[in-house]
């Protein structure tokens, strides 16, 4: 589904990603872990098309299409979804009109007719239950006055509604208490299917107890320095990133 080859990217001339290689197949869940500043969020930014990140080298293919040639909205319509680390507030714009616009754009891209108001509201209620989201929240403006946990839950709710092929969860666990974490993770698991793929970006192993990855990659200084099964997450939890840093730095020296 997703193939990243030798990806280099920089921000303001400073190289952040220094040659990433990664392949994600349908049905897989990949976790990307790493210490702060290792380039995890930059990778999410490159995949979704943030314009302040310059891709200097490498290729990204999504379902056989050259992702780097697409605008951010095209990527979204093709089925890439980012659950934001810091979802923004859009005052005055109701959740309903925001999501209806988004869904109908995506449907248009897939050659489907727009949903009627009635059908849309029905779909919204259905997905709301899936992520146990308070109905009151969907009556408000986008993320306005939402608590940190509500914002994260809202991201997963949008993911449920827009049905992406590839979901990228950027630090979705940060700011969540244990109950909220469980609900969010349950939502993600329910939405996962053999046709879909998920990339979980996280600093801590905690989330991976609930969303069990097929692969864990460790990102350090702009490179994937270690890839393994889910047991790697536990090892990291035990030994911390220092252990890995030492190992990598020794190799480089």
């Amino acid at each position, binding site marked *: 589904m997703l193939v990243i080859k030798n990806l280099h990217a920089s921000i303001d001339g400073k190289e952040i990603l220094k040659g990433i290689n990664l392949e994600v197949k349908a049905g897989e869940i990949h976790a990307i872990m790493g210490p702060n500043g290792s380039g995890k969020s930059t990778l999410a930014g490159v995949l979704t098309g943030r314009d302040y990140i310059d891709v200097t080298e490498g290729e990204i293919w999504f379902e056989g299409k050259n992702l780097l040639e697409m605008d951010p909205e095209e990527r*979204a319509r093709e089925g890439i979804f980012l659950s934001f680390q810091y979802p*923004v507030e859009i005052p*005055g714009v109701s959740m309903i009109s925001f999501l209806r616009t988004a869904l109908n754009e995506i449907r248009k891209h897939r050659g489907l007719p727009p949903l009627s108001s009635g059908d849309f509201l029905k779909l919204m209620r259905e997905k709301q239950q899936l992520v146990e989201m308070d109905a009151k929240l969907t009556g408000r403006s986008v993320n306005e006055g939402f608590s940190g946990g509500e914002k994260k839950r809202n991201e997963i709710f949008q993911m449920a509604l827009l049905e992406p092929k590839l979901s990228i969860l950027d630090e979705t666990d940060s700011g969540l208490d244990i109950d909220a974490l469980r609900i969010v993770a349950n939502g993600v698991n329910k939405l996962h299917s053999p046709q879909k793929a998920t990339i979980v970006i996280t600093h801590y192993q905690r989330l991976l107890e609930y969303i069990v990855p097929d692969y864990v990659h460790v990102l350090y200084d702009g490179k994937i320095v270690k890839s393994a099964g889910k047991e790697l997450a536990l090892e990291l939890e035990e030994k911390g990133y220092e252990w890995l840093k030492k190992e990598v730095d020794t190799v480089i020296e």
Partner: protein
Amino acid sequence: MAAEQDEILREVTGSEYKYGFVTDIEIETIPKGLNEDIIRMISAKKEEPEFMLEFRLKAFRHWQKMSMPNWAHLRIPPIDYQDIIYYAAPRKKPRYNSLDEVDPELLETFNKLGIPLEEQAHLAGVAVDAVMDSISVKTTFKETLAEKGIIFCSMSEAIREHPDLVKKYLGSVVPYTDNYFAALNSAVFSDGSFCYIPKGVRCPMELSTYFRINAANTGQFERTLIIADDDSYVSYLEGCTAPMRDENQLHAAVVELIALNNAEIKYSTVQNWYPGDKNGKGGIYNFVTKRGICKGNNSKISWTQVETGSAITWKYPSCILRGDNSVGEFYSVALTNNYQQADTGTKMIHIGKNTRSRIVSKGISAGKSNNSYRGLVKILKTAENARNFSQCDSLLIGNNCGAHTFPYLEVENPSAIVEHEATTSKIGEDQIFYCNQRGISTEDAVALIINGYAKEVLNQLPMEFAVEAQKLLQISLEGSVG
């Protein structure tokens, strides 16, 4: 990629200003310039009674002693008042007995503008008066309204048919001495709408006037007078467009509203005069005096305006709250793009006891434009327990535009409570990207964000106008982002 860009470019330039066409119609004009003879000529053409000519001449003599106001945050190039034609009218018959007699070109113009003149009007439930250049072309629904005793006609007709009402109220809210442009308008106004709602009548439909400047080198000076007698209600809409021309054209209107005991007037404007091109060439100078008086107790006047057009806007729809417990409201969205300039706001003058006013102003600046809010809240000694709430928000798009807020406050009664809130924000790249990431294009994202920002004001408009206003905001901003 290149083809796609061409497409976008075409779309953006193509939809720049869709009302910019010129109607090819025979026009009757009088010579350029302004003097007493010209004023006599206008008055004679309109077959006016003597008192109107007197009114005009007094105003003209006063105007000659005045100079243009320069306190606004605007750069106004010098205007040569002798280079303007003060009267232009579609030729053919001076007065129409039925729609069949109206020049088909003219009807086509109003069709293009989407104004329902006939049966469409019936379906839409809107009574329309259409003013092209100086002349009121057609007032629909007069008979239906007449059954309720409502008078809705052109100002010229009102002067002829209802001189007593006109004599009593014209200039009573905005005297010709009020300001430079009001004096000019009083001297040369050509037409406009007149409306009288009798005691106890709730006007059953929205009344609407559509103003159109067509002829070149002309100014438009219309005059609107609305009187709501005791216990009556009326909602009035006003729309404006003009062709795209390279020279600037002057529009100096006066609107007066009078609300008697327990009466309510709701006045909505969607102003879309030609704003000039991308480089600031051409466009309408919109110098308008709008004022209402809540003369009676428990009366209410509410102004709602969506301002997207004009090269320069100078406009402060105001309320004089004289009756006890009277209420004044001002809801405004003013959008400027490219080189447009707007200095707009309101005045709320509290005189009566327990008077209340509410101001919600939403400025949007894009391109290299400048957008100022200027508002006065004045609470006189007599205004026991007056209340005012003002909210002035500014939204910036890009780095080359300006937003300014000039609130003035004069409180002479200690029992008054006055609140003022102001915010300035930028459309964030993060907000746009968030929308992009959900599949929404940048243009649509901006429209969504703008409409969310302006919602409180748009909600005040009648339904069909709100939809039009939303589209207008979107069109006016095309090409300003990204």
